[in-house]
């Protein structure tokens, strides 16, 4: 079972929901929590632990100048402008390269081979009994979130129960994180922005064919518009978390709602049961 937590709007409480869901479920079995918000991972703040970390790399071309005759085939092939062939040398712009490998294939002199280039890291830890946390972290200034997300998901993919925390928004990193998931929890809040971006996120999950349900976080009780939208789109509002200074204070101390107020555990377990229903899985 693979559950993604997404939102559209940032700061609605994706990580809060993912962390508490994992904590509540860990009481009865193993959970793998995957932080796919690789540009700003934050689940490790809820689950501090010593992690083992390895580098994540992508292949980029390296040109053997002694074999290259500046024929220009690689530059013509590259759709991203990463290779420019001058009369006396070839210029490579690593930040434009998409690691497609095409240049190595089209080079008639076999003058290009691929070398690994670091783009970030993957960390794994076991912060609590029953919880494995896998975190992808993109290096500052690197524009390639997708290869790290792919690597992080691969690391977790064989585990029985996976909860994936995605980046905000609806762009490539979110699509990559969502792909292959059985159900998606869309976290929204009681603001016009929360609803606006929820609509965008719903369109994405629909296009990907992933069944989705909604969690309203920081609810001020005036959620008529959100509830109406959910009814129109046949989306189950699986959980509503009230706007509460107490919950905010628990979060701000780096604590988990389900640990500080254990009565919430049954609510998050109920959220899981609803996700199973979304995915069409019988317990």
């Amino acid at each position, binding site marked *: 079972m693979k559950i993604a937590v997404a939102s559209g709007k940032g700061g609605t409480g994706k990580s809060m929901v993912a962390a508490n869901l994992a904590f509540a479920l860990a009481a009865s079995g193993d959970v793998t929590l995957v932080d796919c918000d690789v540009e700003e991972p934050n689940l490790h703040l809820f689950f501090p632990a010593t992690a083992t970390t390895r580098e994540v790399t992508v292949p980029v071309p390296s040109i053997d100048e002694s074999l290259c005759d500046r024929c220009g085939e690689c530059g013509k092939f590259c759709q991203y402008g990463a290779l*420019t062939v001058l009369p006396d040398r070839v*210029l490579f712009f690593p930040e*434009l390269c998409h690691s497609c490998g095409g240049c190595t294939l089209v080079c008639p002199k076999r003058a290009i081979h691929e070398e690994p280039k670091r783009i970030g890291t993957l960390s794994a830890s076991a912060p609590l009994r029953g919880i494995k946390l896998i975190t992808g972290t993109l290096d500052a200034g690197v524009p390639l979130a997708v290869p790290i997300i792919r690597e992080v998901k691969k690391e977790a993919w064989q585990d029985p129960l996976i909860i994936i925390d995605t980046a905000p928004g609806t762009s490539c990193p979110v699509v990559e994180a969502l792909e292959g998931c059985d159900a998606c929890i869309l976290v929204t809040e009681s603001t016009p922005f929360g609803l606006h971006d929820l609509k965008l996120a719903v369109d994405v999950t629909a296009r990907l064919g992933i069944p989705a349900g909604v969690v309203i976080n920081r609810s001020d009780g005036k959620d008529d518009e959100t509830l109406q939208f959910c009814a129109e789109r046949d989306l189950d509002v699986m959980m509503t978390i009230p706007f509460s200074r107490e919950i905010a204070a628990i979060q701000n101390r780096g604590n988990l709602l389900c640990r500080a107020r254990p009565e919430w555990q049954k609510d998050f377990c109920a959220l899981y049961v609803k996700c199973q229903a979304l995915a069409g899985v019988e317990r």
Partner: protein
Amino acid sequence: MKVCITSQGATPDAGVEERFGRAPYFIIMDTETGSFVAISNPYAAGAGGVGPKAAQLVIDNKAGALVSGMLGGNAKAVLDAAGVTQYTCRPGMPVREAFEAFKNNTLQRSA
């Protein structure tokens, strides 16, 4: 020598385009004969990396100088490496006038 001028249209009467990689046309003019060739920019609507690709086009057409508006870092790196000097001029100035200004050496070098 040949000079490449980014242009909004296909003739020297059109205005100079201030964008380099996404310019609609490149007009290559010959300072000795005064003749010109207009090249429709195949990268004008490209998704990314258009700067270096347009720079490659300038180099492949044997231009020794470029007159444009703004130039990105990657395009500039390619043109510098190939020894193509870069000049700026007021956007919208007719290409023909920019060409005369280039010949009279009154254009500013790009920063």
